[in-house]
């Protein structure tokens, strides 16, 4: 849902346009099947996060474009903020772990040098 909403931020897109954009945004990790895409669109539409923008006929077939609503943009902003906070917390802890690891190895090498000096 997050990627589908993100795909609609810059412009309205039709079904396959959303599939392509999600593929691009996820660097190929998420490849939406058409049945899955329409399940997602049903949910987003029911929640008022996306609406139908326009309809076009392409080679005799109906093509519908969807756009993000203001409510959808707000929901995406909240989710992005939450994810950024989680990513930031993870990064901070990883830095602390790396710093802790470096300090511990420095102490271990000092202790080893002292032991070696004592033995000599």
């Amino acid at each position: 849902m997050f990627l589908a909403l993100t795909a609609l931020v810059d412009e309205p897109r039709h079904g396959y346009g959303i599939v392509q954009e999600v593929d691009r945004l996820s660097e190929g990790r998420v490849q939406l099947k058409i049945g899955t895409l329409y399940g997602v669109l049903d949910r987003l539409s029911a929640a008022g996060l996306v609406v139908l923008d326009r309809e076009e006929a392409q080679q005799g077939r109906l093509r519908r474009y969807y756009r993000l609503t203001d409510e959808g943009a707000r929901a995406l902003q909240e989710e992005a903020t939450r994810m950024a906070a989680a990513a930031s917390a993870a990064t901070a802890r990883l830095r602390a772990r790396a710093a802790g690891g470096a300090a511990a190895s420095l102490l271990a090498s000092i202790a080893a040098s002292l032991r070696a000096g004592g033995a000599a």
Partner: protein
Amino acid sequence: MSLLELRYRSVLRLLPASYRAEREEEMVDAFLESAGDAPDEANPRPGWGEIASVLALSVRVRLGGAGAPARFVAWGETVRLVALFGLAYQSLDSVFVAADLIRALVFGPEFVLMGAPGSADRLLSIGVAAAAICWAVAFVAIMRGHVLLAKVTALLGAAPTLAYFVVPAFLAGPRPLVEAANLVFVAVPVIALLLGFHSDVTPWRRPWPLALTPTAAGLALLGTAWLVVWLRPQDAEWLYLWLDLGTTVPVWGVASVVVLARRRSPSWALALAVAGLLVLAARLPMLVNLPEGPQWTTAGAQCVLLGALSLVLAGAGLRGLPRARAA
């Protein structure tokens, strides 16, 4: 129309007509665009992933997914209630298993557990008992909104029944009708749980007393059963037919009459009809083995009540469903 389009449209027939009327053309457009150029000579077919995604969408729409018509919302509610009724009964039944395990701890395992200590039979016996207790966890979990936990524990609870049916059937051929009926009785609510509580359904968070009601009812029933065994009433074997699966019959009967009298929820009427038919399916094969007399009459009366009232409930439920949206 290309062969691929024709075949994809056939796959889309899995979806309800009302949904297809709304979405088919744009789904076909999106699919053909994603499939690229596929000449008929290459005999192209939609991939299994695409078919599975349409099947999953179909189940979700038919069971009241986001934006589904009122008729499908009612069917979704029906399926979820069937799951709840099934889990509630199994949860009640698991109290007896838990009591047996406690007896095994207090008085020694020989009373209730199969096999010699340390044997595979003993281990299996403990495993089956533990699986039965999973039903109680599943019911509490679904009532408290933990859908995934409920699904996993319900599958664990159903696993022994499935294994006891499938393994002998695989090794020695068709199983007796009573085992097949028991499998249906156990499996249908689990399938209803897996399908009905899909990602579009907001998990319930019911109060604790409601979540623990089947356990409390199981304890009350256990006490009653022990009292009856202790009193050993003469010529009253028929009484035991109200203390096993038969316990559900009066409760189900009262609930059915209330639902029919209020004429409010088609989902409740349909779910009670399914529950009644499941109990009937489990009860009917017993009639073959019961001796003629009060026992057979009691079980026969239960079956007649279950069958007749289930049909009335099903009729009322189907009539009360919201009309299908014109395609």
